[in-house]
């Protein structure tokens, strides 16, 4: 699967993607023209120093924020052309999001957090419950479905978030620093869960991170610096270099 040949299907394509934040008259260029193709079923890691624009890129390709210029195509559909309903459909069914700070809904139990996207998708409650429990099992916290996020550790919360992101069988998981708040061991577990999802279910995974643990599991690595892709390589090419980069 790590073979990135021209015959592979492109799931996300960005063309000269730019984002500027204007605050109090000061313009910050977070993205300065990113053109990249992400292939269906691959595990791509977006790395770069803090403030380089990883999160911004993540938001753009997930349809969570509007770019200042340039285009994002998901499956050849221009995200900017989607109306509010189609955008909601995209976020609900086609893309799963995983955040650094988990962003679980605090008042809901683990299971309810997982079933919420299903309910938005119109799934029957019984069916949603069944699927939710199965997903929680998949991420290894099936026995704790009735706990609220506050009653769980960071690693467990991130597992809920992954289960939730998988709720409607998305084609693509977007992760923004999924392990930044976790210790090494827990981060490793999350890393492996994501890798398993990619291998077993064929989900495309885009992961913005600082965490070198992801180097091993990803197929390709994009390096972002100052809002531009500075390097885009296959992981087997990088692995030898990790020593002097890290």
């Amino acid at each position, binding site marked *: 699967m790590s073979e990135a040949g021209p015959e592979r299907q492109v799931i996300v394509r960005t063309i000269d993607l730019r984002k500027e934040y204007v605050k109090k008259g000061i313009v910050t260029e977070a993205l300065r023209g990113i053109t990249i193709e992400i292939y269906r079923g691959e595990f791509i890691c977006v790395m770069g120093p803090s403030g380089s624009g990883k999160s911004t890129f993540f938001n753009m390709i997930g349809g*969570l*924020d509007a770019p200042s210029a340039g285009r994002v195509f*998901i*499956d050849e559909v221009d995200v900017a052309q*989607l109306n509010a309903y189609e955008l909601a*459909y995209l976020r609900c069914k086609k893309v799963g999001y995983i955040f650094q700070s988990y962003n679980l809904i605090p*008042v809901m139990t683990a299971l309810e957090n997982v079933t919420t*996207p299903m309910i938005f998708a119109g799934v029957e409650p019984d069916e949603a419950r069944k699927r939710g429990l199965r997903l929680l099992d998949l991420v290894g916290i099936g026995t704790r479905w009735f706990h609220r996020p506050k009653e769980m550790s960071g690693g467990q919360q991130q597992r809920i978030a992954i289960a*939730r992101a998988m709720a409607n069988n998305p084609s693509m998981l977007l992760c923004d620093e999924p392990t930044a708040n976790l210790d090494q061991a827990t981060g490793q577990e999350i890393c492996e869960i994501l890798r398993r999802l990619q291998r077993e279910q064929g989900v495309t995974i885009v992961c913005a991170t600082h965490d070198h643990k992801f180097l091993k599991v990803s197929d390709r690595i994009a390096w972002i610096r100052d809002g531009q892709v500075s390097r885009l390589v296959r992981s087997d090419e990088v692995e030898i270099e990790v020593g002097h980069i890290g």
Partner: protein
Amino acid sequence: MKRIEAKDQVRLSIYKCFEICVNGVYYRLFRSLVTISIVVLTVAFFSNVVTEGIMTHGVARGVQQEMQIKRGDARFLAKLTEVETVAEFVERLGRTVPGTPAYRELAGVTGAAPARIGDLVSFSTRLLTYRKFFDDRLTFGKRRILLGGKTGLAAFEYLLDPENFDLFRKRLSELKSLRLPGTPDDLYGLLREYLGRMKEIEALRAQYEKAVKTIAAAYPLAVLKEKIVAGDSGVLNLVRKLGFQVDEAEYRRISGQLADTERILRLSKSLQNFTFKTRFINRFSILAKQYTPKQVMKKLKSRSNAAWFVQQAQDIPLPVDFDAQEVRRLAREFLARASLREVERVLNTKGDWREGIDRKTIWLMVVSFVVCTVGIANAMLISVAERFREIATMKCLGALDGFVMVLFVMEAGLFGLAGGVLGVVLGLLLSLLKQFLSFGRYALAYFPAAHVAGGIGAALLIGMLIATIAALYPSWVASRMAPMEAMRVE
């Protein structure tokens, strides 16, 4: 491999939204209760002010009516023995409502044709609205500028001078904030009638004076009272012949009332007897300053104390010959009249309730409405604002803008309803308690249920509406934001 296609997101049914909303409220119970309690407090404050105003108004009207009946004897005597001034007479004319006995009496005593009475009554009513405006609404300074500082009928006499009226008109137009009850032309029309009408009114008043004099000639005041107490039919016949409207039954009632008044007077007077006072103070071991008519009468209500009083009355002796039962009855009647007077006094300190709800209270209602609005709006704004992150998350999960809005507006509506109901109950209980402390049993006797229900309904509706509207705006803003924009809002 499945492709991503662009399709419309499904819309959730209102029922589903409601379920999710109630779930959220339930899970966030503590926070919800805090928000609800803010709504409760503000609605309670508002409904308290409103219902208290309405209730005081009801009590005022009831007490006023009861007072009129209780004072029937005094009013009857006054009518037969006191000559009114022109100003007083105009006042009475202006207040007389066609079709009432008082109206018929005007015709009866003066012998004037009903049409003429009607004209004069409506003239007086108009005059009275201006009189009230001049005397009550104008400040001292404005009255000096407009009316040469005159009050009462003198103000109209001042305006009769064309020069003065022109000045009045000119200055009135300069005082933009001042609103005359009618147009200046209307007032001018009234003034043109003034002299003629007043002459007619004076003629009617003279008829009243003549009637009073006839009665005085037949019966000196003391004799008149005695005769009325005795239910003497000669007085009734004379009074009716002179045109006063009083029927047999009413006369009997007045006679009984006057008898009671006289007896209570005698009883109270005998209480001032020094020997009795000393004995009373000793017997009940009270301080001298506690020896007030009210305190004594309260004691005399009991059977044994009344018997003791009768015994003392014979022993000292006191100039009263009531038996114990009569003493008790008079003491009770005295206390009833006193408490009614007390309520009337309290009402007077609370403002002018005769005209409807007192201006100060209306002002207070407006202020409390504003407080209510700001309080609820603030609570709702906060409860939406602190959940921007949650809104953003839900949008990431595929929530539609409409769903987010419905969720929050529904929640606000629920808070408004729950807080409104509790607040209204709390406010009503508070005002009932306060009314009870001020007016005692009159608070319940003259409880204007229908009006209070209206006030409560309004408070409830306002609470709900404000809550909903206040949540509408922020949730609209939040729901339309891109998820990440919303997440950045702190």
